[in-house]
């Protein structure tokens, strides 16, 4: 099978998953006991208001018809109307999604900056004091609640040292970067341990392979062996891991946006939850899931380009 067919097959495989996601997101709201619009409109809603909303949103139709409407709207990229703000959900979601993406990108960048040197050093100096220190530190950072880390970083870097803003998103590109540094760092501290561990293991593993022995036996300088042979191959699993992490980060940003008061899609999700603005909850959950799928697909495709050993079966 060639690469084109492989990509095509991955796309086809996505169809049932996409379908399943829409089913889950649809029934999420429709499994609420009673009339969701009565719940959404709150105590002050009159029977006529509820009846008109019910009719307007097609809630008096059978479930499968409603689901059909839901799918049709999705195809038309219509994510519905926010109950709280009275505007289309997509106009709320899109600008906020950019904030979340920016945080995710910052996180990935900082994760790489932290993990690459630490992972490589701790593998090259296996069982040294540094290696042990890194590995024990990782055990701790793995179990730290991210919102707690965020609060601690705010206390240290923003309140005590005045190096970064306490919260917010700021204005202009440079200012945005300055504002999302701490949120990104917080999330990176949670992600880096996994990457460092993977990197360390794959470097140690590739030291034992035949091609490294060959490289050494032909008298190649050790530096060239490490950079040109060991690292090139050991970085592969880390690329996949970064892809998966990027998908997971879409969820991780939810909490960070609340800690650092960022106007992101995750914060919108939480606010809509407390406001019982279900169309927004639905749309946000759907978009987050789509992003995860797309990132995973992109990872697989990138991987098929950088690793010639990938078989397309």
């Amino acid at each position, binding site marked *: 099978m060639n690469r084109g067919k492989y990509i095509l097959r991955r796309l086809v495989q996505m169809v049932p998953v996409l379908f399943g996601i829409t089913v889950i997101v649809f029934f999420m*709201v429709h499994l609420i006991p009673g009339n969701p619009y009565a719940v959404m409109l709150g105590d002050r809603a009159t029977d006529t208001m509820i009846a008109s909303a019910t009719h307007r949103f097609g809630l008096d139709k059978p479930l499968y018809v409603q689901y059909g409407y839901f799918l049709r709207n999705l195809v038309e990229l219509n994510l519905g109307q926010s109950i709280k703000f009275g505007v289309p959900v997509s106009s709320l979601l899109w600008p906020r999604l950019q904030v979340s993406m920016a945080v995710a990108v910052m996180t990935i960048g900082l994760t790489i900056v932290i993990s690459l040197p630490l992972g490589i050093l701790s593998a090259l100096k296996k069982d040294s004091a540094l290696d042990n220190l890194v590995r024990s530190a990782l055990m701790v950072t793995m179990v730290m609640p991210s919102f707690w880390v965020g609060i601690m970083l705010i206390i240290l870097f923003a309140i005590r040292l005045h190096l970064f803003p306490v919260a917010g998103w700021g204005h202009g590109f440079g200012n945005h970067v300055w504002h999302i540094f701490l949120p990104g760092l917080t999330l990176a501290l949670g992600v880096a341990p996994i990457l460092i561990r993977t990197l360390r293991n794959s470097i140690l593993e590739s030291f034992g392979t035949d091609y490294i022995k060959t490289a050494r036996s032909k008298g190649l300088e050790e530096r060239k062996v490490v950079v040109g042979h060991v690292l090139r191959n050991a970085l592969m699993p880390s690329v996949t891991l970064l892809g998966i992490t990027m998908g997971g980060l879409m969820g991780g940003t939810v909490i960070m946006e609340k800690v650092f008061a960022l106007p992101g899609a995750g914060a919108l999700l939480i606010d809509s939850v407390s406001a019982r603005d279900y169309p927004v909850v639905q749309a946000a*959950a759907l978009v987050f899931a789509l992003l995860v799928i797309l990132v995973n697909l992109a990872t697989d495709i990138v991987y098929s380009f950088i690793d010639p050993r990938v078989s397309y079966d």
Partner: protein
Amino acid sequence: MTSQSEANNRRTDGMAVDTRKSETLASSAFENRRPPRWRRILKTRNLVIGLGILLLLVLVGVFAPLLTPYNPYTQNYNITLLSPQLAHPFGTDEFGRDILTRVMYGARIDLKVGVISVISPFLIGILLGSLAAYFGGWVDSIVMRVVDIVQAFPFIVLIIAIVAILGPGLNNMYIAVAGTAWIVYARLIRSEILVQKQQEYVLAARAMGGSNWRVIVRHLMPNTVTACIIYSMADIALYILLAASLSFLGLGAKAPAPEWGAMITEGQSYITTAWWMSALPGVAIIITGLGLSLVGDGLSDLLRPRGR
């Protein structure tokens, strides 16, 4: 450069030693089947330390009323926001409650939440995963497609959405976790059973007329459940973090409850004046998480010595 070529030499030495070692191991296999006792203890050092930490936390939770003179709920406006000092080692909060006392009582809530949360995903995942692996075909397809779909959502987003719909509170978190977190266990046990079901002991059990149920429960599960048990330790830590995060988002434990996450959240309003309110409950979560990961690592060393 020198150190690297030294490392290189050590590697070649190491390989030479390895071959010799495997010969000696083979010849001495009958002499001592069990490694010497001190090595077994060393190997399970993580387990011992981890269990020690967890036992301590359980004892602190259980005997909290005897260990502290304060009540976790009683407010005292004469001593609000005191910094850590002898009478209040962790300081006091905005209502004058002793934070150490609340952290100790919090052990009851958080440990319970972690353990309760893990039970249903563990059981559901093992059941569905083994059925999928054992029967294959359409059973496997259905289970694995559901796994794919649930996996597509970021975990926290799905939990938040479900809790949002069921209503805030820890009980609804248990339901949300049961409905979503089982996929990890299902995948773990499925991959183990796919390997094991071709083994001779399974074929023998089936040839002897063992029912499918008997083969799965009596033969396959005991040989495959280890990975899930090891993973469940990390999972308990994850649920404690999740419960804390939900409290932070206002979807978890309710206000006066001394849940660690809720305490961190309360402290967030006072970060400029009272850092200890958020900082110290977080340390409790970290210690618990460390205990659990040590137990997980220890179990992994003890139960699957070749798994490294």
